[in-house]
Structures are given as structure tokens and as C-alpha cells.
């Protein structure tokens, strides 16, 4: 077993933390937006759909640039957040999490939406005749029935976050221990003369992580499927 250097461990843990926070914070919004898109009939639904999918088609560097002009300490929104809540995104790991969350948001919404659209709408009618109101139906039917989609979405979004490069380096730069995630560490190693081995080790780590995530999602899905049909 090859042991990891402190810098490698630092980059790995930072990547996991940033992706974890990004996915966890985006999840409630993703469920809300997916529910609105799947079940809601309202004007502007098409526009909401387009906005959610924007990060998929926009170059990540542009995403990072937009975040910079939106959340920089001198930008109106960034300045307000900094002064009122003492929250600073620029040059901080929280900024990396924000960038990851936005970039991976469409993955969560798509997976949740798909599983919501697969739910037989007759079940909601049945619940209604049995006395369940809209909020009740959301928690007793919508959420549990969308669980496979929620988990699949979270895992895909987590994996996409781990690989995010352009938006992070543009928005919060490449600071060791603060914003230098695995992809940024690989990039740095390649830029450094004689860093080929370090880059290879980090790349291997990334590949291992990806396979681990895949395995985890497979186990989770199998468990859920068993629960739904047992």
C-alpha cells in the first residue's frame, strides 16, 4: 500500500469536503426545482428549466467569471453578504463549494425530475381521496418515491463536483489548503518541472475515487430497488 503525502491528503480531504457541502446545500433547492418542473404548471416554467440547465452548456470559466462579478467582495451581492453576514466567497473554500454546487445543480435536478415523472400520478389522486393534502402528499409520496432519483442525482453531482476545475480556479484561485482540490493539484503538479510522478499519483487517486463513487451508487440503488419490490 502506497502511503499518501500530507499535501495529497490535504487535496483529497478538501475535494471531498467541498463536493460534500456543495451537494448537501444544493439538494433541497434541487428537490424544490425538480418538483416544480415535473409536477407544476406555471408560466415561466420553460425559463426556469433553461436557467437550471445553463451551467451544463456554459464554459466553466465563464461560470467562474460570472460568480466573480456577482460574489466578489466589491460586487454588490458579494459586498452585502460580506458586510451583513461576514461571508466571503472569493479565495475561500466556501466559494469553491458554491461554484461546485451551481455547476453540478443540473445533474441533481435532472435525476430527481426523471424519477418524479415516473411516479404514477394516480397515486396522488388515491392519496387525495384518503384525506392527504398537498404538503402531506409531498412528504408521504413524492419524496420517498423520488428517493432513487435523489440518491442517483446526489452521487452524480458529487462526482461532477470532484472534477470541477474551470469555475473554481477562475472564481477562487488555486490556494493550497483552501481551494486547491484534486484537479487543481494535478494541474499544479503538471505545471511544476519534475512533477510528473506527483501528477500521476494524484490522477490515480482521482480514478480510485471515481470507481468508489460508482460502486457506492450501485450498492445504494440495489438496496432501494430491493426495498421497493420486497
Amino acid at each position, binding site marked *: 500500500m502506497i502511503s499518501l503525502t500530507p499535501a495529497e491528503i490535504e487535496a483529497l480531504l478538501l475535494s471531498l469536503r467541498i463536493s460534500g457541502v456543495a451537494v448537501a446545500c444544493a439538494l433541497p433547492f434541487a428537490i424544490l426545482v425538480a418538483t416544480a418542473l415535473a409536477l407544476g404548471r406555471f408560466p415561466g416554467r420553460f425559463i426556469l428549466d433553461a436557467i437550471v440547465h445553463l451551467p451544463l452548456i456554459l464554459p466553466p470559466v465563464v461560470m467562474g467569471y460570472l460568480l466573480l462579478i456577482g460574489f466578489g467582495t466589491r460586487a454588490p451581492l458579494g459586498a452585502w453578504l460580506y458586510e451583513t453576514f461576514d461571508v466571503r466567497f472569493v479565495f475561500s473554500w466556501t466559494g469553491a463549494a458554491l461554484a461546485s454546487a451551481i455547476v453540478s445543480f443540473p445533474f441533481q435536478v435532472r435525476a430527481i425530475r426523471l424519477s418524479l415523472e415516473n411516479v404514477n400520478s394516480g397515486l396522488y*389522486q*388515491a392519496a387525495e*381521496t384518503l*384525506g392527504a393534502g398537498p404538503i402531506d402528499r409531498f412528504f408521504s*409520496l413524492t419524496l*420517498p*418515491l423520488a428517493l432513487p432519483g435523489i440518491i442517483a442525482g446526489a452521487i452524480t453531482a458529487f462526482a461532477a463536483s470532484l472534477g470541477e476545475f474551470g469555475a473554481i480556479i477562475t472564481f477562487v484561485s488555486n490556494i493550497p489548503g483552501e481551494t486547491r482540490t484534486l484537479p487543481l493539484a494535478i494541474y499544479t503538479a503538471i505545471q511544476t518541472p519534475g512533477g510528473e510522478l506527483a501528477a500521476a499519483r494524484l490522477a490515480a487517486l482521482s480514478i480510485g475515487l471515481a470507481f468508489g463513487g460508482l460502486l457506492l451508487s450501485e450498492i445504494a440503488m440495489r438496496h432501494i430497488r430491493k426495498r*421497493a419490490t420486497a
Partner: protein
Amino acid sequence: MSIHLSIRHKIGKLDLDADFHIKEPGITALFGPSGSGKTSLINIIAGLERPDTGRIEISEHVVFDHARQINLPTRHRRVGYVFQDARLFPHKTVSENLYFGARRNADKLNREEQTAILEMLGISPLMGRRPAALSGGEKQRVALGRALLANPDILLLDEPLSALDHARKQEILPYFEWLRDHRRIPILYVTHAIDEVARLADHLVVIDQGKTLASGSVFDMLGRSDLPPLAGQFDAGTVLPARIVSRDPKAEVSFLECAGQRIVVPYLGRPASHQVRLHIRARDVMIARTAPSGISANNIIPVTITDISDLDGDTVDISLCFGHDADASLFAATSGRPTLHARITRWSAGRLNLERHQKVFAVIKSVTVDGQLSDHSL
């Protein structure tokens, strides 16, 4: 315990125009061909669809009134709804499904009543399972239990048997009979199967192309040949109430009494004075000018022709009133005497010179007793 409905609603090309009033508990069959608007009608009663105009009252509560802008949401209407496809919640166990409605209703059934329902339906052994592990018949039983445990004011059944094969149907039908006979809850039963109507229904509402054509007691309604959805049906005929009188010494047949006439059917295994219902299909009734002898059929009834009407194709429908007395032809419609129907070819009717007021004999080839078909040789 009543339902009073008068609504109009346009769904695509169908113009729904329904009007009926059910006062008594028991099963009311909403009968009509596919696409006649039956399901839309009970969805409207449940509040799942909103009619363009009209008024709906369930057990003295106005749940919809267009003029007064009342539209009670489904969850407050206290309707029990059993869907064609059961619609059990796939992620919940049978037990969780059953109590879903009961848990959300302040006006619960007490424990004994709940136990009685579960026992009647025989679903206690299934409690821990999930819907995917149930057979079609078991699913419908759980769906029925789930609706009943919520203690509804009215039960709506949307072709609950149509997705089941014959054997599963026979498994479920007795539960509906039990409901009809033991619980004072009005039941609206949507179906396009005459045999289900004949076996279960107390009242009948006939609907065709969105219009409610007629409603009334199933005994009066089933024999009517003026209602297109009923007349000409393969299984069309008459439903008659009868009483078991006795049996033969070897217990091979039972003797029934129906409006003063003795009817012989295969032994029913039930005690005397027990009430049953007979379903005599028009195609199982032959007509003879004179009382036939040396014939295997046991049920030969003197009748008087009250009407002859043309059906599609080469058949005619002959309405027959029990008895050979003068009253039979005069009072057929009002006397409450049972009317039989015979469906014979136009050629036969012409050959026998059949006409109104004529005294003839009805030879009944087979009788269905409480859904159980009797032998053809009787």
C-alpha cells in the same frame, strides 16, 4: 346516506349530462358502454374532476355547487375510492397502505369495526408485504380495505374487477356482497358487465354517451328493452328476487318461489326462506305456444306477451308478464309483476305468429342464482 347529483361537463367531444338521486344504502350500478363517461362521473363525485356546472350532494353535505361557488377539495369529501388499477402505494407495506386514510381522518372507526373489515377481507396474513408481492386479487382486497378503513360516507368503485381474470373475480365478488348486506354505506359501482350488475346491484343508473338515461331498482330496470346500452347485450335479461321454499328428498334440486311461480334450480345448499336473486338471460328463454311436454327443461312458466320490439340484426325482444289472467297484459307495467324477456329470431316470432296479449309459455333453459350459473339441462 344519500347522493344527489345533477351536473353538466364537457370533456373533449363527450357532453356529460348526468342527473340522479340515490336515497337508499346498497349498491348502485353505474352501467354503460366504454367511453360513456362513467369514470368521469365518479371522478367528479370524488372531486378529482371539476364539472362545468351543477350541484353534488353527498349525505346531506353539499360538496359542489356551481351557483354558490362551492367546491370541496377531494380530501374533505369523505369518499372511499377503489380504482380499477388498485393504486396501492408501492413504497409502503400493506399495513401502512391500509391505515393511510384512517390515520388522516379524525372520525375513525373503532377498533372492533376495523378488525371486522380486516377479517372479512382476510388480509391479516399480508400485513408486512409490499404491493409488488401481491396478486391482482389481493391488491384489490387491500385497496378496498384501505378505502373502508378511512370510514367514508360513500364508496366509489371504478370497474374494480375489470383488470382481473375470471377466477380472481369470483374471489372478490363475495366481498362486495358482504359489503352490500352488512354495512350501511352507499356504494356506487361503475361497470360495463351485466353479470356484475345482476349479481350485485340494488339500483341501476344507465348512462350512454354522457347522458344518464334512466335510474331505478335493478329488478325494474334490467328488463327494459328501451335502453340501448342494456337491450341487445349478450347477457341482457331479467333479475328477479326469489325465496328458497324447499328441496327434493335427495337434495339434488332446490325449489324457489318467485312471484307465485315455482322455479327449480340445482341444489343451493342453503336453508328454506333464504332470499336469493335470479338472473334469467333473454337468450336462455324459449317461447312455446302450448305447454310443452317431454322436454328436459324444468321451468315452464305461463306468461302473457306484453311487448315485441325489434333489436339490431335478425332478433326480436319479447316482453313477457307472469300469468295467463287478463290482468297480466293490462297491468304488466304497473302491477309489479315480474317481466321476463325472450330473445328469439324474427323468423321464429313470425312462424309462431306471436303478438301482444297472447298467452304463451316461457321455457327457461338456465337460471343464474346469486351469480352462480345453474345447469343448462334444468
